[in-house]
């Protein structure tokens, strides 16, 4: 007891004396970045996960190509040129004079090893599952810096897919996850103290320009308030995913389209949602302008489709449904007159901790539907339950539901969205429309203008003829950036943070 008392006294004395000696303030060319959660892994083959990508993608391990976030164009990175030999064969020229952090050179052989590891079924790598499902890839080395890639089916968007392929050093264990990734990037993976921080250090033999930031420390805090406070108090330089209400300082807090799109999936096969007038009413009943600038940021864009502008296949001609509660009521009245049970209870499925303010958002949506005369019950789910309802098989005798869904597609092409979400065979699709299936199937094997046009037609059919969902917003994220840095977040920021692009004032 005496001991604890004296400890406390000492502590009090220290606190009284201290002016500001406590925390190491970020300074110089070292930066501290605060994420909202710790990455579970840092293996190169998981770099498509946003928490992993923010740390290692293009910093530690680089990809073959890169997507320009502004235009959606494919840019060279580790591959400098590509050309299609036949529908199933591509040739790549690789960048010369590139070294891995362990000193081995980057060449055709290294890429072959990397591809074999990426597609290794013993590992549950996200890049394989997400982008190379059902695809076999055969890499043959033509020269030191030239390879040929053969696939079992035609892949017209291979250069786009290559923007997901990270290349770790050949020394990376083939059958195990690496907690110390080695790549070709401008930063080496220095250390990972689990739970505490990850440190990257500048790689002096990098092939490209020398970045300004010499080292980066990643930490993670769950609460948005705390992350914002860390930049405000000078402990951190960049804080990700700040909630709208914490983004109070326009000098440090930047919004960026984070590629996520929010929608309600309408359970089309179930009465009364099988009636198109009810589905239209669901769209007209939402006051998107009221939500914008309040629960959602002022910078969100009302959405008409599930891919963001700039994605190949995005249809710019579609118009969002206007807020027209009278029209909604009128449509419901018409439907009711024809015997559609529009007062039947509809379940609005929300998800806990989905995105900032998502709890408020679903409550507001419910209120708007109630005002339109619909009987909507809110049901909050925990993430695993939410996934249960997202995927097929759907329960046979389920209650009609509106399902809060969010989707991001940073690949630059609509195909990764549209099949899973809308094709009758898609794992998350409630639609079953022959015409739409046909459009999607044709688009998936087409190239160029034709591909774009077919996808655009498909989105038009979903939005106007089928009314398969209530598209809400293309979402924005907020980052808080310390004034001593020059860094503007982009569409790609959700999945990567290129330290080389961070400048120090």
């Amino acid at each position: 007891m005496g001991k604890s008392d004296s400890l406390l006294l000492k502590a009090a004395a220290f606190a009284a004396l201290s002016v500001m000696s406590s925390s190491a303030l970020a300074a110089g060319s070292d930066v501290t970045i605060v994420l909202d959660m710790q990455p579970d892994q840092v293996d190169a083959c998981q770099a498509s996960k946003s928490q992993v990508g923010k740390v290692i993608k293009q910093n530690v391990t680089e990809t073959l190509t890169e997507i320009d976030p502004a235009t959606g164009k494919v840019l060279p990175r580790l591959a400098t040129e590509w050309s299609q030999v036949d529908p199933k064969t591509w040739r790549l020229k690789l960048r010369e004079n590139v070294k891995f952090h362990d000193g081995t050179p980057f060449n055709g052989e290294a890429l072959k090893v990397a591809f074999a590891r990426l597609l290794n079924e013993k590992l549950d790598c996200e890049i394989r599952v997400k982008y190379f499902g059902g695809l076999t890839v055969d890499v043959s080395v033509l020269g030191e810096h030239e390879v040929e890639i053969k696939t079992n089916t035609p892949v017209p968007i291979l250069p786009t897919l290559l923007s997901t392929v990270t290349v770790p050093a050949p020394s990376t264990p083939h059958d195990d996850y690496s907690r110390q990734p080695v790549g070709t990037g401008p930063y080496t993976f220095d250390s990972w103290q689990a739970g505490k921080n990850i440190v990257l250090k500048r790689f002096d033999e990098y092939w490209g320009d020398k970045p300004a930031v010499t080292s980066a420390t990643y930490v993670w805090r769950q609460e948005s308030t705390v992350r914002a406070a860390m930049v405000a108090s000078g402990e951190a330089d960049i804080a990700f995913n700040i909630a709208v209400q914490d983004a109070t300082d326009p000098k440090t807090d930047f919004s960026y389209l984070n590629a996520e799109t929010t929608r309600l999936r309408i359970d089309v096969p179930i009465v009364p949602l099988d009636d198109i007038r009810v589905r239209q009413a669901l769209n007209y009943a939402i006051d998107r302008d009221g939500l914008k600038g309040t629960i959602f940021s002022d910078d969100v864009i009302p959405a008409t489709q599930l891919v963001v502008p700039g994605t190949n296949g995005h249809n710019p001609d579609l118009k969002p449904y206007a807020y027209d509660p009278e029209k909604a009521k009128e449509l419901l009245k018409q439907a009711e007159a024809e015997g559609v049970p529009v007062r039947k209870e509809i379940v609005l499925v929300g998800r806990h901790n989905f995105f900032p303010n998502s709890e408020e958002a679903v409550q507001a949506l419910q209120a708007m539907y109630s005002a339109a005369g619909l009987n909507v019950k809110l049901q909050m789910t925990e993430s695993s339950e939410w996934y249960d309802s997202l995927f097929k098989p759907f329960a046979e005798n389920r209650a009609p539901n509106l399902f809060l869904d969010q989707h991001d597609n940073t690949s630059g092409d609509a195909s990764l969205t549209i099949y899973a979400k809308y094709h009758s065979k898609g794992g998350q699709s409630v639609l079953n429309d022959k015409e739409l299936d046909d459009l999607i199937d044709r688009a998936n094997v087409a190239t160029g203008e034709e591909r774009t046009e077919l996808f655009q037609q498909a989105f038009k059919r979903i939005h106007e003829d089928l009314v398969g969902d209530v598209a809400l917003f293309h979402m924005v994220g907020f980052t808080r950036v310390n004034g001593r840095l020059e860094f503007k977040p982009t569409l790609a920021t959700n999945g990567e943070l290129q330290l080389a692009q961070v400048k120090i004032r």
Partner: protein
Amino acid sequence: MSGYILRRGGQSLVALMALLVLVFFLSRLTGNPTDLYMPMDASLDQREAFATKHGFNDPLYVQFGTYLVNIAKFDFGDSIFQGRPAMQAALEAFPVTLRLALITMVLALGLSVLIGSLAAYRPGGLFDRVASLLTISSASTPDFWLAIVGILIFSVTLGWLPTSGTGTFWHWLLPIGVLLVRPLGLLTQVVRMSMISALAAPYVKTARAKGAPKRRVVFVHALRNSMLSVITVAGDQAAALINGAVVVETVFGWPGIGNLMIAAIKQRDFAVLQACILVTAVAIFLMNILIDFAYSRLDPRIRG
């Protein structure tokens, strides 16, 4: 004595097994990690392949058998999400939590005995009223709220303390302060009430009548007797802390076991969950043995 310890240890081992069985089967009522692990656009076939590969499609008794066989080989399974041995993750996180819990409990016990006895010295007096009011109100403040307000006041506005994280002595102050209020408030109340009872008991009166000095009566005779209930409540609080000061760990970003456990619970990362519970359960069981030992020392008539 060694016979007692042996018997007690054996019983605890059985209870530990029961706990593991319970956790294994109950946690699997909540689905499996396939959907949470796989990217959203993965096909149904890919999901099936994943679930089969990791054994989630096997009947539960088969999964349990595998688990038991592996445990016998001291293999506690791999974390699906972290791709490394689950026990490694649990053992990495546990010392952080243990340190937090120990410091908090030592401070809480010391302060509560002091404040509680002083308050019981003269029930209804000024010190008693003020101390009771303060401890009860602090103990009834939500800890996450206190933590965030603490950060905003002491780190952002005043700039005295770091917001969060670990490292220096200063990093400890806010988390310990937030953790402390609840056990301190509860224990102070318990100390106060048992002291009031104890001071009214006949043997204390006897001691007084025999001329034992007042301070000695309060701090030795009465305190010794009131320690029984204090230790019970303290044990309960300590168990809660060892199980992870989840809220404080998440707000302040401390890499403790509570943080690890909640992530594992949300991700259905069963191997990590089981490893965490095994580690904390052993600690809690050991603590309970110590508490029973303390009971019998404080009151020799008691033999659990």
